[in-house]
């Protein structure tokens, strides 16, 4: 099924080099207090992930608990609208409503095999927090989720879900009180609890080996896409794969098994917020510069003095001032094309999908949908769009948009 790839000296798109670099991005820029934890993971993650017993349990939970494989759905009316062929990879149909559960299952199983008793996580929109709290409930593990005070306010239903699942939700009150600060708090917690705790990072960010580990856990998305497309189209390879990018985990998973097929064009969609040059945006490749954030070198939105800035997006899951090092490399090397969609375009795209296909997408996924317009797709093109999550959590935002449109 999945091959064990042992680290070699030269990184590839699918695998960073032994120091965690994809091209010039990655590494493990961590204080010494995190070294033993990160080193332990680095030494053991590949070995554990590809043990037979691990794979058996992981595949079992993906199948029977998360509900995988998720369907590859030909969106006929949407296709007609764009005069092309568009498939939706239905990650929204996963248990807990997004792709985040793939990684949460993987990392919690890994933590158990490392003998950890306590799980911590950061969350922005709350989807990763809910996914982690869910798997911790399933496995009877203590779960602490850090969430920016501001995000707790704007994502109250997910806070309630996490609490019902038995997790402790702690507010991050420093800095801008959002995802970036929740990540800082989670890292501090890990520093203070070096022995019994595993930190489940929710995207392909953080120090090596996290970006690689999370990409591998999410790679099931493209593994299934290939099989499903073969059945439907007689070929494994689409012309385009489109996904939204916050930190980049659903995109990494959707791109993964196509990375070495240059025929497949990869399209990553960032959140432009109120517009790239509005000062209220989260389009990291457009606005960021190389820098170090949360333990890796990547593209980071920052002031000329190197202070990390607070981004803006209507979608809390894309409201992050960085992207994973793999994506910075895909951008720099030109392997993926980076587009962006504004708050308004994404809202419109969400309503359009709902009307055309009867699917209410997450606001994050709506950014990928909004980019279709910019792509000049041909009638003969086959596109797979990663519908990373469902829109239940965004209903309040959608209702507000409906009211103001009336």
């Amino acid at each position, binding site marked *: 099924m999945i091959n064990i790839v042992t680290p070699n000296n030269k990184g590839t798109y699918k695998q960073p080099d032994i120091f965690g670099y994809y091209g010039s991005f990655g590494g493990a820029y961590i*204080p*010494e*207090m995190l*070294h033993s934890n990160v080193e332990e993971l680095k030494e053991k993650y590949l070995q554990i992930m590809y043990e037979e017993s691990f794979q058996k349990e992981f595949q079992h939970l993906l199948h029977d608990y998360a509900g995988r494989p998720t369907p590859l759905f030909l969106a006929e009316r949407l296709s007609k609208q764009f005069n092309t062929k568009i498939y939706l990879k239905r990650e929204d149909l996963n248990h807990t409503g997004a792709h985040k559960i793939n990684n949460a299952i993987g990392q919690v199983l890994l933590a158990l095999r490392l003998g950890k008793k306590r799980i911590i996580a950061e969350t922005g929109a709350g989807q990763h927090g809910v996914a982690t709290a869910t798997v911790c409930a399933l496995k009877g593990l203590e779960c602490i989720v850090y969430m920016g005070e501001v995000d707790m306010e704007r994502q109250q239903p997910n806070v309630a879900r996490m609490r019902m699942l038995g997790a402790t939700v702690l507010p991050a009150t420093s800095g801008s009180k959002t995802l970036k600060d929740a990540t800082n708090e989670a890292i501090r917690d890990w520093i*203070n609890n*070096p022995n019994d705790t595993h930190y489940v990072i929710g995207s392909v960010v953080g120090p090596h080996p996290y970006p690689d580990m999370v990409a591998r856990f999410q790679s099931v998305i493209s593994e299934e896409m290939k099989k499903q497309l073969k059945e439907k189209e007689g070929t494994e390879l689409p012309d385009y794969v489109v996904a939204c990018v916050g930190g980049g985990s659903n995109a990494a998973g959707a791109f993964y098994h196509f990375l070495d097929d240059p025929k497949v064009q990869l399209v990553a969609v960032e959140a432009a917020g109120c517009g790239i040059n509005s000062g209220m945006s989260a389009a990291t490749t457009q606005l960021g510069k190389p*820098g170090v954030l949360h333990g890796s070198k990547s593209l980071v939105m920052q002031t000329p003095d*190197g202070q990390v800035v607070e981004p803006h997006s209507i979608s809390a899951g894309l409201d992050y001032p960085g992207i994973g090092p793999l994506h910075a490399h895909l951008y720099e090397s030109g392997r993926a094309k980076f587009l962006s969609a504004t708050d308004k375009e994404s809202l419109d795209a969400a309503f359009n999908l709902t009307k055309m296909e009867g699917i209410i997408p997450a606001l994050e996924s709506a950014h990928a949908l909004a980019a279709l317009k910019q792509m000049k797709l041909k009638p003969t093109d086959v596109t797979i769009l990663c519908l990373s999550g469902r829109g239940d959590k965004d209903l309040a935002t959608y209702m507000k948009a409906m009211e103001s449109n009336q």
Partner: protein
Amino acid sequence: MNRLEELFQRKKEKILNVYCTAGFPELDSTLTVMKALQDNGADIIELGMPYSDPLADGPVIQASGTRALQNGMTIEKLFAQLQDCRKEIYIPIILMGYMNPVLQYGFERFCQHAAAIPVDGLILPDLPEHEFETEYGPIIKRYGLDFIFLVTPETSEERIKKLDELSTGFLYAVSSSSTTGKQQDFDAVEKYLQRLQGMNLKNPVLVGFGIKDKQSFETACKHASGAIIGTAYIKNIESAQDIKAGTKAFLQPIIG
């Protein structure tokens, strides 16, 4: 011989390093604080360069950094403030900060400007040893700056030896795997320091994190060359009306 080497040759015990955040409590109080520290018995000044996301620091130091940033502090302004400081500050100065602002300033330009003050050493907790060895260490050396690595109770003996080998000036022993400002279990700390003491390290060891008063300072100094006070001092000048008097009141009981 730089000021750090000179200090460690002259003084073998109870070396007091005090951390303060540049641009805190006011933008232009940096020098006042440094002068007050020197006048009241500090042997080394560790000057923190504020950063929006200081992973290795606790809430008190982070809050002081946030305030410094609100005051408008930047590396550019810090070097301007330090320009003539050697007219009155003769004790060693170490700059402590995080990679990202230094990278944006330009790593080499940063070292060049630090050496021009001159500053004596650097602490960049998120600069890993691989990147230090392959990329940044040679630049730091070229400008004659010391570079100080951190070790923790979780650091393996082999790794402590390696980090000691790479460090110049001193080795920074974090007294427990914790961000600054946390309370410590001093029995465990003592065992750890004894272990370090028995290792015949090349560099003197200074103990950081969790030192707040005479008793914790003395305990740390039993098995190390000295200690670093950060959070407790920041708390002190945060609330002090007068930086000079506050610093005096805080440091005298500790060194007295």
